[in-house]
């Protein structure tokens, strides 16, 4: 009996060995290298000095710019997540309930943007929001002044919201599983108007789905780089763009590494906080 178990174990390890080896080499080792890099120092001339110290973290914490950056990243992500849930909720509810024969097609359309590279979608937004884009052309043609919608926070907010929407819709759809249409019908039978039935019966039942969809959208927003970089035009600063600039422009690798670790810890704290709140809310 014991021998059979250990043979099973051994064969399991042998089967998993190539995949584990590849991830140890290309994922674990680099993540350790990143953590190690964050403990190095940067000299006044910008050269890297090997060290085991927290001075890079101290330097970043002393710079008020980084605290602004944190607040801006958090509020931008909260905005994108909230808007994505507000826009995605009716879509997910519709897809969950509809008996239309186009249901599969409509579901595919809702997640289709996932198959399109983020850059392609940004190009679409540049053409819609740009100074000579769709919206401003319409404004000009009716004699109104144009509004700047790219290379600023507004553009990043719009692009980011759209880029996380498919994930939000998927999370909402997955969470709607426990929704029972008969409950709303019962409410209607008992005389509740549709709006009242929705807010008193349907919506409370979907709060866990909303909460999960929001967190996913938030985590993806704070991790996003392509949209803030391209839609912000170098004028919108978030954690992700700052990490990229430190790594590729100022070549301050210890700072880039320390900011990365900081962003990861921030994500972890938020997920733990979300889990604690969810546990308290759900009986």
């Amino acid at each position: 009996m014991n021998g059979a178990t250990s043979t099973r174990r051994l064969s399991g390890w042998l089967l998993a060995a190539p995949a584990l080896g590849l991830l140890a080499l290309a994922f674990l080792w680099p993540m350790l290298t990143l953590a190690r890099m964050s403990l190095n120092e940067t000299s006044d001339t910008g050269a890297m000095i090997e060290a085991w110290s927290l001075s890079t973290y101290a330097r970043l914490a002393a710079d008020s710019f980084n605290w602004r950056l944190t607040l801006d990243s958090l509020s931008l992500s909260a905005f994108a997540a909230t808007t994505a849930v507000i826009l995605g909720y009716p879509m997910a509810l519709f897809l969950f309930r509809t008996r239309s024969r186009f249901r599969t097609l409509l579901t595919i359309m809702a997640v289709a943007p996932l198959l399109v590279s983020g850059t392609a979608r940004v190009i679409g937004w540049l053409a819609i929001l740009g100074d000579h884009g769709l919206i401003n052309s319409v404004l000009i043609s009716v004699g109104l002044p144009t509004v700047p919608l790219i290379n600023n926070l507004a553009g990043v907010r719009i692009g980011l919201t759209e880029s996380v929407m498919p994930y939000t819709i998927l999370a909402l759809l997955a969470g709607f599983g426990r929704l029972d249409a008969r409950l709303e019908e019962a409410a209607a039978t008992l005389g509740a108007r549709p709006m009242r039935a929705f807010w008193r019966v349907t919506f409370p039942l979907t709060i866990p789905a909303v909460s999960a969809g929001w967190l996913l959208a938030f985590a993806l927003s704070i991790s996003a780089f392509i949209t803030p970089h391209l839609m912000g035009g170098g004028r919108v600063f978030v954690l992700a763009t700052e990490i990229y600039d430190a790594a590729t422009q100022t070549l301050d690798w210890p700072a880039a590494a320390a900011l990365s670790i900081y962003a990861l810890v921030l994500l972890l704290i938020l997920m733990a906080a979300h889990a604690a709140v969810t546990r308290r809310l759900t009986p």
Partner: protein
Amino acid sequence: MSTGPVVRLMAVCGYLVLLSPLAVVALLSVSSGAFLTFPPPGFSLRWFTALAGNADILSAARNSAVLAVLVTLIALLAGFPAATAIARERVPGWVVLLLSAPLLLPTLVIGLALLMTLQPYGLVATWPGLVLAHIVVVLPFVVRVMVSALQALTADMEEAAATLGAAPLRAFLRITLPLAMPGVLAAATLAFLVSFDETVISLFLVGPRLTTLPVALFHYTESRTDPLVAALAVSLVAISIGVIALVDRLVGFTRTVGHVE
């Protein structure tokens, strides 16, 4: 229960926000104008012609295709056995966690970590470096899809084959592998698409002599805004749809993925 008019109207608004950038990219890719302006002054295929004559973009496209094929093959070879071990519960839980961990981290951080690790060994802007980098994000997808596909198969079949006298290898080759084939193809398709579209990690690991198509698109968008980027974006989407349609024709991809979900 039917959906109310309010829900339907709001859903339409959601679809408009979600799909308008794709529609606009498609429309402007056939613009005859010199800029990404709206409305386009006229329609022509000049930007697709320009794309076909752009040597840099063609070589980036070839790199991306070769890279995606290499990464898919390696990810399948390493991922299939690992998925078998997980589906048969022969490895502890933390292995499962490690094999999906890269999907939980921002790709920006993974790219940066790989840059810092590979540069001292001169592996930046090389094929081995790019293949390793793509494996990190492709392997977890492959393992996840393959585990779902293998869990749907019962171990009973292999055991029945063994009872009937088949050696383990023969039972695997004749019973398990054919039954798992739709899952393998679904995993391969996903692996190819993820690698072919990967932008952020590659951004750190390409160089002037070796670049990929999504990175070329990214840098082009940074500096210029002519309809060439729209034509390039449409070509990328067309390749993705083409791959999916091809696999769907062969085995029914939507059915397989629906089954996995």
